């Protein structure tokens, strides 16, 4: 009998352990991924805020990006608001879907306090629903063409050859690198590269009304064709996943790649790489009229959930990441966070050259390029379209499938899931 009582007591204790948190307790719970850039940024902002507001406490929860999305969806589906945080970091690619499906979970407080003219449209537009802006734009996903100068010089080329390129000009350089050095000239994750090309020409996989834009998307066709041509020349390293992709660059297997501004800290971790790297503007599609030498990839923004201390959360975000150039200066120096807060560009820190990149003023370059990123749409169905294109892009670049077949099948597959 004693044992049974002990077991029951244990059971009750376990259940009691699952109680929720109290609202209005001035504890801001924050979810984010990546301890280095995102973690340092939000905790530095918190330190700054706490000097003025002694009664506010923070609770930081770091987890993998995919885990965070899974956890968010699970809690939202179960209606379990207690397990959700006050402030959450969401990727710019996934946020529009969440804002549309779980609109009532998001607080509108930021809309009233933040001056959005200080942020680029390509960040603000996707977080706007019916005229209300829901988030605070955070890191800059504007892309650059990162090149390993050692390999470039080995191929008898120089930085000047890589400025203001079209993709067909890059083709010639790529072949030269491959022939002279035996190394890959370019490394990509195929589906990310496809989206970069499409965005650089100012379009996306969805139309303005949210419907799919795959089958009749001429820019998408040209982009896929371009990638097929590039791969057939043999100078592209087709990375299986993120680790493989980063490895191909940091190990010196491939000379160049296109990635977001947030890739700088990764490059800087390459041992002995100092002075051997430069960043040029991304090549443009010469098959599409009006395509820009600029695109953006990744990037994320902060959102406040309709759960607990929204007012405090909004004040915290606005007074720190929403309006402080000093904070962005500090974060750039400490972890290499490239802001989307435009006034930050005026500071000396942003205008300074970076020794790792041979003194190049990469940060003001990035902010210049982010002005040129063509506006594109990210809407709810973009994720479905991206997934169905991801199914076939691999076969297309390897020439196992024609662009037309892939586009037709992607459209058909996406239609089955699109809302």
């Amino acid at each position, binding site marked *: 009998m004693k044992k*049974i009582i002990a077991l*029951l007591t244990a*059971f009750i204790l376990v259940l009691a352990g699952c109680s929720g948190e109290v609202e209005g307790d001035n504890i801001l719970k924050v979810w984010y991924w990546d301890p280095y850039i995102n973690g340092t940024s939000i905790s530095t902002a918190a330190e700054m805020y706490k000097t003025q507001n002694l009664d506010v406490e923070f609770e930081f929860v770091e987890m993998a990006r*995919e885990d965070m*999305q*899974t956890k968010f*969806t699970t809690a*939202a*589906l179960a*209606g379990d608001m207690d397990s959700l945080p006050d402030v959450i970091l969401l990727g710019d690619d996934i946020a529009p*879907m969440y804002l549309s*499906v*779980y609109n009532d979970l998001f607080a509108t407080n930021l809309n009233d306090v933040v001056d959005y003219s200080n942020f680029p449209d390509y960040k603000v537009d996707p977080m706007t629903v019916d005229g209300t802006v829901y988030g605070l734009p955070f890191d800059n996903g504007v892309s650059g063409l990162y090149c390993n100068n050692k390999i470039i010089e080995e191929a008898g080329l120089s930085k000047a050859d890589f400025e203001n390129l079209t993709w067909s000009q890059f083709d010639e350089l790529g072949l030269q690198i491959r022939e002279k050095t035996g190394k890959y000239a370019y490394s990509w994750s195929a589906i990310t590269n496809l989206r970069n090309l499409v965005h650089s020409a100012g379009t996306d996989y969805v139309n303005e009304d949210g419907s799919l834009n795959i089958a009749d998307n001429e820019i998408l066709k040209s982009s896929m064709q371009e990638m097929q041509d590039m791969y057939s020349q043999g100078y592209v390293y*087709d990375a*299986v*996943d993120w680790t*493989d992709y980063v*490895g191909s660059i940091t190990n010196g*297997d491939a000379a160049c790649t296109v990635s977001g501004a947030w890739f700088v800290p990764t490059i800087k971790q390459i041992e002995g790489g100092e002075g051997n790297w430069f960043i040029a503007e991304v090549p443009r599609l010469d098959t599409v009229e009006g395509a820009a030498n600029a695109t953006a990839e990744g990037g994320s923004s902060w959102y406040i959930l309709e759960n607990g201390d929204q007012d405090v959360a909004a004040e915290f975000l606005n007074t720190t990441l929403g309006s402080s150039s000093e904070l962005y200066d500090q974060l750039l120096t400490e972890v290499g966070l490239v802001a989307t807060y435009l006034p930050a560009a005026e500071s000396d820190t942003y205008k300074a050259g970076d020794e790792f990149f041979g003194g190049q003023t990469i940060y003001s370059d990035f902010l210049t390029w982010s002005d040129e990123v063509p506006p594109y749409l990210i809407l*709810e*169905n973009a*994720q*479905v379209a991206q*997934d169905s294109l*991801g*199914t*076939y892009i*691999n*076969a297309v670049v390897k020439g196992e499938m024609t662009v037309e077949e892939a586009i037709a*099948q992607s459209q*058909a*597959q996406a239609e*089955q*899931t699109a*809302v």
Partner: protein
Amino acid sequence: MKDKTTKYLIIPMLVLWGTFTVFPVLASFIKSLQSCRGNTCSFVGLQNYANLLGDNLFRESLINTSIFFIVQVPIMILLSIILANVLNQKDLRFKGAYRTMVILPAVTSLVVYSIFFKLIFMENGLVNNLLLNINVLDHPIQWLSTANPARFVLIIALVWRWTGYNTVFFLSGMQNIDDEIYEAAKIDGANTIQQFTRITLPLLKPIILFVTIISTLGTLNLFDEPMVITNGGPGTATITLGQMIYKHLFVFTPNAGYASAIAYFIVIIAVTLAILQRKVLGDDE
């Protein structure tokens, strides 16, 4: 203790089972008759099931799951029986050490071992380097980004992970077979192979049936390995039913209705296969 008290003792278990097993099973069936967008659901009857039949991605994942099932399960069971037979030899030394080694893969974390397989089979990974160095290959195979090699890697991974686990079942089955039967057979002049095929295998039948059924269920629910090693790719070459459910809940606009319908489809296949296997292997008990 009297019978009455024993009855009451089942109550906590019944409550837990009812709450955490029966209720979710019923609730998810009701969900499978709805179409959802986040938390907004509407009743659509059997529409989800009808949509499944026309869904290419679903067909692909069904085909992939079948490939894994048809190729991997027989190989694994055969290897398990052979291993168990070897480990069951009376004159084998260091038995304990070998048995531990055989069960080790089954106690490693699913995600950790999957990551290792992924690293081993990368374009510049261990396998390619080894094969290049001993001149079997003249250029590296893209294991993870071509369809059939990717499937091959997954099957190898699954065999590595689960063979030892099943060996334990066979081993315990073999130890339950009375030595006297083998002694009698020896006196009658049966050799080792005859002993194996005429005595060991028939007496292991219930275990073979059990292992086949749990392996079938395992394959139908396959998720971790393709998620980590290939992420369903390249293209749709290794996407499984489990990943379909995940996509419809966590990648696309969340549709718990459609995801539940896929889950119920798996249940239907699993039950059908289990009945078939019972028939084929003829379980008399």
